[in-house]
């Protein structure tokens, strides 16, 4: 008796013969080959991903404002703070809650009114600080949440929590969950692209914020950079021209096909397809990142910075390009909102960099008919205190981290335009109900009028057609999801 398989016989009965393989390859590769290429392909083996419900948004453009913008100086108008300017934060407002070690030891914690004028705009009558004139123009497109809250009080855990649903490292990021769940809508570009404003300094960004955690690496966000090489390793080495590269890739394909004929491992097919995709990306990425063909009026819309690669303005315009090309999750980061001191000048500068491009993106998408199915999110990892960190001098005062209430806004993609959800107390220190009574929301139970980070995540996923409770992956003995074991879809925000 022989213990071995009869190889030849079995090859003959194998579904995928050499001839069939090359036949399919000639048609530009079937689903099999593309299967392991990009996230969409993971689901593309003859079956479409089944949405949990009809999606309202096809894509997200997340304008993350890293560092924690001061809501009191942008959107959350608190005239009371100006009246009580300089007085100590009352104990019944602070309610024994923890402060960071940066201001916990201050001798006094004086309330600080905003140095900016506020006014209402649009039919919605939303309040805007004078440093946001462009966003004020799109007031009626915006869906404000003034009652966001989180637990983390330091940047690293807070931004990690916002972007991965956990303060601890090692979990998949928001965009990678969406990639995993929904796949791609294009064949030439990654499905999850990350852009960060260049040269902003301030609180750092980390690879984990767009990493895939325990999902595999094909779901990672792909960072696009300003400059010669928009994606790392994208460009040919010096001295290799496209025709030389093409010739090499053809021989490489031959080698791999030859190997496949021997090994019959579909991974080799996949590998061949990857090289084709890589080759296509060498053209598609420079194409999509090339803003030069945009007419002048578009640059005027986004503001003068939009002509400078790597600025927030240029990235907003690039985000629109990516959205047009079927990139599903576009994550922008803009650092620089961590105003512990020198807030007045600092936030004015930040507003100058972000106000016009953010508004322009909304206007531009609307003009192109894309706002309805593009969800825009604008906000940071936490808010800032209503009291001053350090001495209360108009030019030097600052605000410390404040996780208990802050503002984000959304636009497009299935959210109610021109509304404001939730409010804070008159001190801008706690989330309050409609009458101004202080609420004590927790992440465990949904409190009407308050939106926890997990609630926002659940809501954004819902808008993308995903039930946040169903998008889970077992890892190390339990089912993990973006919203941990919490999160509620905030119905009041939905159109």
């Amino acid at each position, binding site marked *: 008796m022989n213990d071995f398989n009869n190889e030849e016989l079995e090859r003959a009965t194998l579904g995928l013969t050499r001839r069939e393989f090359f036949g399919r390859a000639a048609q530009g590769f079937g689903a099999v080959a593309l299967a392991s290429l990009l996230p969409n392909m993971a689901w593309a083996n003859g079956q479409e991903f089944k949405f949990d419900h009809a999606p309202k948004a096809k894509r997200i453009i997340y304008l993350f404002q890293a560092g924690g913008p001061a809501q009191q100086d942008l959107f959350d108008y608190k005239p009371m703070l100006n009246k009580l300017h300089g007085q100590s934060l009352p104990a019944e407002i602070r309610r024994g809650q923890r402060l960071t070690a940066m201001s916990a*030891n*201050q001798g006094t914690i004086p309330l600080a009114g905003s140095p900016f004028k506020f006014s209402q705009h649009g039919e919605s009558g939303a309040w805007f600080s004078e440093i946001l004139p462009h966003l004020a123009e799109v007031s009626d497109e915006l869906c404000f949440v003034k009652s966001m809250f989180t637990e983390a009080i330091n940047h690293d855990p807070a931004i990690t929590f916002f972007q991965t649903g956990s303060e601890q490292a*090692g979990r998949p990021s928001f965009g990678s969950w969406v990639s995993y769940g929904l796949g791609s809508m294009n064949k030439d570009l990654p499905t999850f692209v990350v852009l960060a404003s260049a040269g902003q300094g301030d609180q750092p960004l980390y690879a984990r914020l767009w990493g895939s955690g325990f999902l*595999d690496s094909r779901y990672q966000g792909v960072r696009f950079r300003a400059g010669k090489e928009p994606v790392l390793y994208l460009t040919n*080495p010096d001295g290799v021209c496209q025709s030389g590269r093409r010739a090499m890739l053809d021989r490489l394909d031959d080698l791999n096909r030859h190997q496949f004929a021997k090994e019959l491992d579909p991974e080799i097919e996949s590998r061949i397809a990857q090289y084709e995709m890589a080759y296509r990306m060498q053209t598609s990425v420079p194409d999509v990142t090339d803003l030069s063909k945009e007419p002048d009026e578009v640059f005027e819309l986004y503001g003068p910075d939009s002509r400078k690669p790597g600025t927030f303005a240029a990235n907003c315009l690039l985000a629109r390009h990516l959205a047009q090309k079927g990139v599903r999750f576009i994550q922008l980061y803009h650092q620089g909102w961590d105003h512990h001191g020198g807030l007045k000048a600092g936030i004015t500068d930040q507003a100058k960099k972000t106000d016009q491009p953010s508004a322009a993106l909304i206007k531009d998408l609307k003009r192109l008919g894309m706002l309805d199915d593009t969800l825009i999110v604008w906000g940071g990892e936490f808010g800032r205190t209503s009291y001053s960190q350090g001495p209360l001098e108009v030019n030097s005062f600052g605000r410390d981290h404040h996780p208990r209430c802050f503002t984000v806004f959304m636009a497009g993609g299935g959210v109610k335009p021109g509304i404001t959800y939730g409010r804070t107390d008159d001190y801008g220190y706690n989330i309050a109900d409609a009458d101004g009574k202080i609420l004590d929301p927790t992440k465990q139970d949904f409190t009407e009028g308050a939106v926890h980070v997990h609630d926002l995540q659940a809501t954004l996923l819902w808008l993308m057609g995903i039930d946040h409770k169903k998008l889970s992956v077992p890892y190390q003995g339990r089912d993990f999801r973006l919203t941990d074991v919490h999160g509620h879809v905030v119905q009041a925000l939905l159109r």
Partner: protein
Amino acid sequence: MRLGNVAMLAFGTIGMCSGLVAATQNAAPKEKVSFSRDVLPILSDKCFKCHGPDEGSRQAGLRLDTSQGAFGNRGGRFAVVPWQPQDSMMVKRIHSADDPMPPPDSGKKLTDAEKAILTRWIQEGATYGKLWSFEPIPASPKIPVVKSTWPHEDLDYFILARLKKAGLSPSPPAEKLRWLRRVSLDLTGLPPTEPEIASFQADPTKASYDKVVDRLLASPHFGERLAVDWLDAARYSDSYGYQSDLLMPSWPYRDWVVNSFNKNEPYSQFLTDQIAGDLEKNATTDTRLATEFNRLHRQSNEGGSIALEYKTEYAADRASTFGTAVLGLTVGCARCHDHKFDPITQKDFYQLFAYFNSIDEYGLLLSTEIVPTPSMLLPTPEQQQKLSELKAKNQTAKQALQSAIAGAGPRYLQWLAKKPEATIPDIKAQFSFDKFENDRFVSSLPGAPYGSKLDKVELVPGHSGSAVLFDGDNGIALRALGGRERWDPFTWSFWVEDPRPNAAPVILQHRTGGTDVGFCGFDLTLENGYLTARVMRAPPGNAITIHTKQPIPKDKWTQIAWSWDGSGQAAGLKIYLDGKLAATTVLNDKLWKKINAYGDLDASGGDWTFGRRFRDSGFKGGKLDDAVFAERALSDIEVAQLYDGKALSAPDADLHDYYASAIDPDVRSAAEAVRKAQHDLADAEEGVYEVMVMEESKNRVPAYLLSRGRYDAPRTPQTIVNRGTPESLPPLKAGGPNDRLALASWATRADNPLTARVAVNRLWQLVFGAGLVETSENFGSQGSPPSHPELLDYLSRKFIKSGWDVKKLVRSFVLSSTYRQSSTRTAKLNKVDPLNRLLGRGPSQRLSAEMVRDTVLAAADLINLKIGGPPVNPYQPAGLWTENNGMTQQFVQSKGDDLYRRSLYSTVKRTTPVPSMLLFDATSREACTIRRPITNTPLQALVLLNDVQFVEASRVLAQHLLEKKQTDKQSIRETFLRLAGRPPDAEETSLLLQALKEQRADFAKHPEDAKKLVSLGDSKPPALDPVELASMTIAVQTVLNSDSVIWKR
């Protein structure tokens, strides 16, 4: 969906998904249902979330993880009635159409097969048991009897028996060279060299295989290969990982791991050293170094962080990592509540936590230079010798000082005879705070010192004249008082009125920089009237700390004097109250290196600041008056003189000590010698590498059961927990201290059911690509069941009996017939067992990130095979580290040979991993990882095509080929041998010949392109025809990118 299934789906159209589960998990028709193998996985996955061990989430009071829970009378109804499925509510409910279990909104659903298993289980008596992995490993598991000549190792009988059961047979042996490449990569991470290939091929004997394996096991690269996987588990990194992600001192631990595998240290010892190397009877520098394993978690230096929050996080990470890496259990799941699936309670978690939280750590760190404690110096032999000499010199100098003091008597009498006026020399400055002129407090003594107000300091009536009043945020800085390092003696005397502000306000500190995440230098704080004085570099471990036993009165002017003699010992740190030496408790008495380790002292030598510190609690409402600074540790009577103004002139004053300290030239010069010796010692220590280690606190730090896992949950006598191991596992041996050493010996005992199984499985995964338990990180009920449970038990028992001999175990793997099989797929195998769980073919896998790079560097002879040492920075696109992190160190690319070290030695920067490695699925090392995913992405293609290190390596290999002046065919053959470990076949040769022809034609048209291409990389471009070299470079790169190289088959 399971992670494994993600990969399966990717190839779903070939129809590979079927069969496996049925083949491995379900009971054969006639066999009795096994609780642990068949029933528990179903209950765990579908029922335990609401009816499992976690009381907090239990629904309807029903628990199904114990027989008591399942069999209990529930108002005349029973969830499970043994032998009576028709009377069991469970059976009714799982079949119910209108009210099914699990409920539809749970997202869980039972298959018909699962319902049948549950029903049969009840029919057969509903026997409960433990999860297989919690059952003891049998004492002497039997090898299955299979008549065959195929097996070579014991393990082959198990594999063959299982294959036969599934109607399969093994694959034929792989070609010799294929096995050689496989085993070389698996055991050393490096491809076989040409001579190794030649000698193996030339040896037709059966023993040739053994020879190769013995050579590889003896190679120092064996340890490097095994280290990579363990370093993933140990979350080894060269950076701290939070916020600024500063570089972290850890590489000596990495080298310890490499050496330990090379020495074939028993695995039990390997674990014991890492868990408790500091507590072992014969602890050495090496065993203590191993304990850095428990300090490799991320650590934060973000301003504003609360130290206790992070300290809690760190200890939890240690407990979780121990659980995962050693026991294969997800104990971390029980941090916030009882485990939902496995018998691990929240209390179990905090009992484990309690082994790891009792060390002298602060919780946050200040800078790369200041190593968080506990820590250990790792001097080189030369440094060690120097340190020993300097310590001896210190001893000598201190003894000389003592002798000088002892011998001062006669000189004192001579001096006394002259009836001198006793004054205090060495006073450098004296501030009455009565005068504030030109923005300065003026010292009443001549010289440079002066004082400044920091913010709006008020002057109020004081102890004499006016005094300074603090508001908690303001302070005063006294400047130009000279350099103050740990070897510089000083005395401060001043008056305060203490209103007892909250917290622990800083009264006085030497401004050496630092922030709220860690201070260094000298400081004096006042809490509830008790004073604490510190001389510190990295408190609490690397500091001298004393604490007064009596409080100062509230709201009453008190004189405080604080002196330091520069001796580097707690005995030299003193506090006086109202002129009298105060009784103090010594909290810490270990100090090494310098204390001015952060920031720079300004030209004046730094400031002393009263009343406040950056982001620290200030002396709110406190008052300060009449401060005196002396550049010497004054004698008691001098301090008394500063208090009452008359002690020195009292008629009965004993002036001997005053004379010795202040006047006697011999004593003064001996004191100066001590100062110099301390200075030299600290300087020498400063250059010595320092690593974090584990070291128990003198007083046990209590651990608490933290509700919902929150660091600020109540810590009360009711929530305190003792150290202990999970109750569902064998108990700790009684007797002896219950410390980490006890934990380590519990984990490595022969009756621990998990440790050996987990280790064997992980080594199996390392060799065969996937573990016998596929979820190698989870041996709990949510993990996958073993494909070959008897084999795992057999190997585990044998491993323990062998003395936990890793090399012996691995040797049996790679010499087995199972491992020697061809990995080529067949239609039948693809259909029945697409993922090769039954091992009907040999292992095949894409090379790991490290292997891809190392293979290419080795093939080009570019690799630098030096073992160990500080990490290096290979090529990576410029600017990544600081691109979005202005707080971190600059990336400085390594030069020369260091560019080509093995990938194991590349700096692991947690927030910015080497991108080419990350793209090939290397982990960021932010958390313990046991299993890397393996992906295929276009970005990997771009790395291999365009990353300079692969282009340069291809060119260097091309250079070797051309320099030999051989034919193209020979060059192609050599390329394949070096990169793929085998010669090319005819078709491959002809394809490469064509590639060469095409590239030559192309480059001949563009010779300038050829020049550019061959100049890439740091190594020098050779004096060869650029067109030839460029063409050959591309040909090499073509091979390099092919499946034959990137995959191990």
